[in-house]
């Protein structure tokens, strides 16, 4: 036990804490130089979640392996219950209250998707992977939560689930041509899916294509976040000196647009620093994956790293105008418990996978 604690990957933990602290600094600034309401709670959550992640790292990986599908089914039920509350209750919702925590099941489901896929490919013999019928189960694992999230409607999360699935399937060795085929199916389905989009989601996509045309409407967020980033320049305006957020030009500055606030106050150097920290964190995940002696650990680590990657890339692309504003937070930096919990717990699983990397057999049988 003590041995395990000694062998924890402290670089990973350090990176998580460092990034979260940068987040806390941003939240402190977003509140106009105050710990309340965001920064203090952000740090309290961080402490609690790190503790949770370490515990998760120390439990037996066999247990996690065995319950992988159960976890998935449980989180799927949670997601479904949100839908049902949404249908029978008062309007759409993404949140569910568990033990006083407001939790977004759609964040949790990404972790259990990773677990379920990791177990599936761990169990599957390598020569079986190429069989078409063995695609059915992974696609089902992805499709069910995807559909549930789409009808919420949460375009960003749905997209990130789809991307997560594609990356994991790619990592696990599915033939390239299947991706090419899948890609064409996707392209062909775009016009169809447009019909099912909510009007506000259509607006977002169209405003992304031409933000300046609607400077005070949908394109407004995008222009303002670009102004915040751009006016930061190389070194930024200085901590607490960002006028864009202070003057409330930045929308959702404490959540999805926190990166622009940091970009305004710390400049290009600040944004690059965060990007490099995230790249390092992802690299650690990949390093653990390569080191792992079992497929479960490998897929798990790659999945968690990819999940993190998707968050980061989607968020930064979104605020810098590379993709439509879809509502994805920047993990560990943005204010919000669910995403932070999901990311830190999933990294706890990676820590676990590293500690148990040498195990050959995960079955108890």
């Amino acid at each position, binding site marked *: 036990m003590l041995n395990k604690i000694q062998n924890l990957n402290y670089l990973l933990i350090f990176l998580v804490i460092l990034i979260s602290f940068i987040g806390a600094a941003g939240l402190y600034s977003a509140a106009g130089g105050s710990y309340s309401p965001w920064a203090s709670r952000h740090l309290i959550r961080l402490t609690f979640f790190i503790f949770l992640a370490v515990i998760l790292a120390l439990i037996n990986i066999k247990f996690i392996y065995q319950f992988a599908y159960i976890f998935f089914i449980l989180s799927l039920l949670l997601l479904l219950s949100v839908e049902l509350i949404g249908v029978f209750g008062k309007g759409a919702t993404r949140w569910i209250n568990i033990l006083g925590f407001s939790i977004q099941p759609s964040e949790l489901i990404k972790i259990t998707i990773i677990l379920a896929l990791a177990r599936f490919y761990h169990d599957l013999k390598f020569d079986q992977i190429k069989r078409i019928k063995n695609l059915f189960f992974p696609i089902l694992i992805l499709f069910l939560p995807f559909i549930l999230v789409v009808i919420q409607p949460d375009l960003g999360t749905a997209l990130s689930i789809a991307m997560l699935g594609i990356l994991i399937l790619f*990592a696990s060795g599915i033939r390239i041509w299947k991706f090419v085929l899948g890609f064409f199916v996707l392209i062909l389905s775009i016009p169809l899916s447009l019909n099912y989009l909510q009007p506000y989601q259509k607006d977002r996509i169209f405003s992304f294509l031409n933000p300046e045309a609607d400077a005070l409407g949908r394109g407004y967020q995008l222009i303002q976040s*670009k102004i915040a*980033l*751009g*006016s930061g*320049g190389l070194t930024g305006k200085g901590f607490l000196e960002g*006028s864009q957020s202070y*003057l409330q*030009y930045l929308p959702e500055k404490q959540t999805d647009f926190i990166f622009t606030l940091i970009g305004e106050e710390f400049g*290009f150097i600040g944004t690059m620093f965060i990007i490099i920290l995230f790249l390092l964190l992802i690299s650690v995940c990949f390093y653990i994956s390569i080191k792992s002696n079992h497929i479960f650990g490998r897929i798990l680590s790659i999945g968690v790293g990819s999940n993190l990657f998707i968050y980061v890339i989607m968020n930064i692309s979104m605020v810098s105008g590379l993709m439509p504003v879809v509502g994805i937070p920047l993990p560990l930096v943005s204010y919000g418990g669910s995403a932070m919990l999901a990311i830190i717990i999933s990294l706890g699983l990676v820590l676990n996978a590293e500690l148990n990397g040498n195990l050959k057999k995960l079955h108890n049988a």
Partner: protein
Amino acid sequence: MFYSDEKKQYSVLNRRTFLLYLLKVSFFSIVGWRLYNIQIKDSQKYKTLSKNNQIDVEIIYPLRGKIYDTNKIVLASNIKVFDVYIIPENTKNINKSLNELNQIIKIDFSDRLKIIELSKKVKKFEKIKVLENINWSQLEKIESNKLNIEGIFISQDYMRTYQFDNTVSHLIGYTNKPNQEEVELPFISNMPNLEIGKDGIEKSFNPYLIGKSGQREIEVNSFGRVIREISRKDSQKGDDIQVTIDLRIQQYALNLLKEHKAGSAVLMDIKSGNILCMASTPSYNPNKIIQKPNKKYWDSVLENELSPLTYRCIQGLYAPGSTFKMVVAIAGIVHGVIDTNTKHFCNGKISLGERLYHCWKSNGHGSMNVSNAIKESCDVFFYEISKKIGIDKIAKVAEDFGLGKIYDVPLPNQKKGIIPSRDWKKKKYNESWYPGETLISAIGQGFVLTNPLQLAVMTSIIASNGKNIQPNIIKQNKEIEFEKLEKYENAIKIIKNSMFKVVNESKGTAYNSRSELAPFAGKTGTSQVRRITVAERESDDFRKKEVEWKKRDHALFVGYMPVQKPRYAVSVVIEHGGSGASTAAPIAKEIFQFTKNLET
């Protein structure tokens, strides 16, 4: 078999992991490149946009300068007015607040609906104007109830006000929002909402009265809410202006004039050229033009056929009638056509060519010298001498005495009038001058047109023994010495003596208006507004008959006071007043007496 399979699987996994990692690094690079473009390459552009986001420049309007009369009595100033606003975010129920306000001051139901409609459209912290220019007592009622009415906001503003309503309205003018052309004027270029002078002194002195705008830079957030003031440069109050008008005389004269439909009275200080009174009736109330809504009042002013907006003292043109005879007599003396002994016999008319020229006294004055001709206003005498003087010489003298010109006083829209001459007629009608026209001109009829200010200036020049007096409306501290036209001095002395007789000797046309209190000299004038037909003339009593107001003659009087060392010169014109002796001279007398009383 199993072992090699596993090995193969791991090598595939390693390869895929590596590819995936490459993909991620390249994605990170794309994002990094994007941030480089925004934060480094285009940074300047975004910095500018960021600045524009925050800083708003607000203009602080200056307070308009005051206008005083010669004794520092305020004629135009600014009063505090109060506007009542409602701020939607400060009230839970805007409808309730408006209803409560309505119980204090009535607000039309439709206006209340409009305000509620508007409150849904504007930002919730934006104030909406509910009432404008409320007075003190209304303000007091609101103030005492303010705590009970949610969301009410009272702001203070200034409104131009004229203390004496219509007494000096023509001279002072009024202010209003600039029209499209006026917005381009240099002194208001950055203050589009500034009220500017539209007429009179207010207009002439816009650049002085307006002052200088200030500005404050304010930081605003994305909703336009003011966060803080960055810098402030206060506005500079406009300069005050003191006019030469003596409000007491002005008020007094206007009251005299008000007994008639239309007319004017000008009183000048001969020494300085200062205009002490320049009253014109009918006049208008500038306060009613400023206070909105003013449409009803505007329409009534514009529809009034007596045209209350016309400043008759400078814009009313009248044939001077017999008041012009001094000019002709002086021309006769200066050019050696007559002297004090020259006599002409008046039998009521003379003939020139095929036409008869009548004297106002149809049975004639008998033998007349220049003194009596002025005293009794004999027309025939002037017909006779004008034939010898000629129109051009008369015109030259008239101009020397201030007629037919626009003065260099800051009064907009002065009308020049006409002093006819051969050249003038050639230019104007391309016709040569007929001798008969000289005769008509010599009694101040025909082409001759003057405004009342010109007549007052003419009288001042006569009274001062020929000083080239220029009228002045702005009070100045420096003494002004006017140059003397020496060549007229002797002639003027003769004429002044005659003007004394007009008022102070029996048979003088203004003898009935003589004053013991304030002895004055002068000359009556009665100017025809239409040609009198032969039939009318033969009916003998055509002057006594009640004729339609519009067809009656204009009544004029010019004069100066005191007789020795004259100090004041007056001109009174009553439109369609009948005769100068009966209507205009009594007013001149009253004004002189009132002015005399003020001195002691």
